């Protein structure tokens, strides 16, 4: 794991977390930002004003009940127009689970998610391999690093056409891949075991697993240091604080 940014140097960074009707993990995302040393700012889906935040997290859940398609209705929320503009301007944006689905529906990230190949809801401690450690959200990891964070969804199978997949691979835009833990090689049938991707610029990242649920010892996945001690998700949040300082 890379260096952890001290809280003192980063408390100025304000990270927005958008809440939609049906969002579940907004509080966990806010808490993760706080634990990393940033200042969380609650944003509302129906408010186009991003209140001057430095970065935005679109958290997990079942916004609008996943009606139509996961993320399909949320992408038209007032806040998402502002997020799309800000993302095109280079602001760091992270979509977790339902947030990733919203970012693909908004065409801020390529591909889409469909139902898991086995059709079941899945909830497990999921190992991932870091493939890109240059994005705004992953610069505190190293390429090839294996991390474990929770995965919990029904619509988690990442799909895109072969041309898009080839382009993502060639441009290094696959950020995380599911790793084989001896139980499952690929938990949902995602093409090329892709768990997360980024845009061309590396400021927008989306992934299905949940880094915000692995940020504090005692409340994370099991790890080598003991039960529930895993904090492999924390570098997402220190990464963005680092990238904001560097910007």
């Amino acid at each position, binding site marked *: 794991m890379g260096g952890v940014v001290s809280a003192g140097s980063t408390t100025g960074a304000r990270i927005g977390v958008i809440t939609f009707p049906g969002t579940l993990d907004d509080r966990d995302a806010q808490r993760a930002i706080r634990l990393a040393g940033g200042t969380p700012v609650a944003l509302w889906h129906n408010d186009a004003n991003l209140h001057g935040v430095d970065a935005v997290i679109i958290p997990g859940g079942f916004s609008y009940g996943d009606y139509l398609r996961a993320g399909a209705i949320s992408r038209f929320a007032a806040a998402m127009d502002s997020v799309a503009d800000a993302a095109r301007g280079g602001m760091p944006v992270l979509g977790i689970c339902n947030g990733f689905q919203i970012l693909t529906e908004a065409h801020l990230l390529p591909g889409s998610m469909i*139902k898991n190949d*086995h059709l079941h809801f899945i909830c497990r401690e999921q190992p991932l391999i870091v493939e890109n450690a240059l994005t705004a959200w992953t610069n505190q990891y190293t390429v090839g690093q294996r991390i474990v964070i929770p995965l919990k969804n029904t619509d988690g199978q990442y*799909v895109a056409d072969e041309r898009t997949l080839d382009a993502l691979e060639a441009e290094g835009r696959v950020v995380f891949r599911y790793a084989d833990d001896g139980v499952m090689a690929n938990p949902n049938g995602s093409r090329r075991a892709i768990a997360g991707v980024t845009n061309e610029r590396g400021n927008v990242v989306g992934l299905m697993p949940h880094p915000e649920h692995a940020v504090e010892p005692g409340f994370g996945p099991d790890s080598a240091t003991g039960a529930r001690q895993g904090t492999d998700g924390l570098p997402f949040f220190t990464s963005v604080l680092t990238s904001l300082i560097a910007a």
Partner: protein
Amino acid sequence: MGRVIVEVMPKPEILDPQGKAVVGALPRLGFTQFMSVRQGKRFELEVAGPVTPEILAAAREAAEKMLANTVIEDVVAVFEDRAA
């Protein structure tokens, strides 16, 4: 009152896990003649007046923009429901 039908299907190259589950279950009911099933969506859009060419064009636009995700789905039909 008029009604427009919009039909959306998963793109041929995209796996349809729900269709696969359905085709797996059919033989258990004795339906062994169906080799594959693909599951799509049908939308019924109602308007106050008659279905004009403009209404159909708007339905087509709504279908491409929102009712379907054209990354994984195709809008296969947009037509007036004359029985409505």
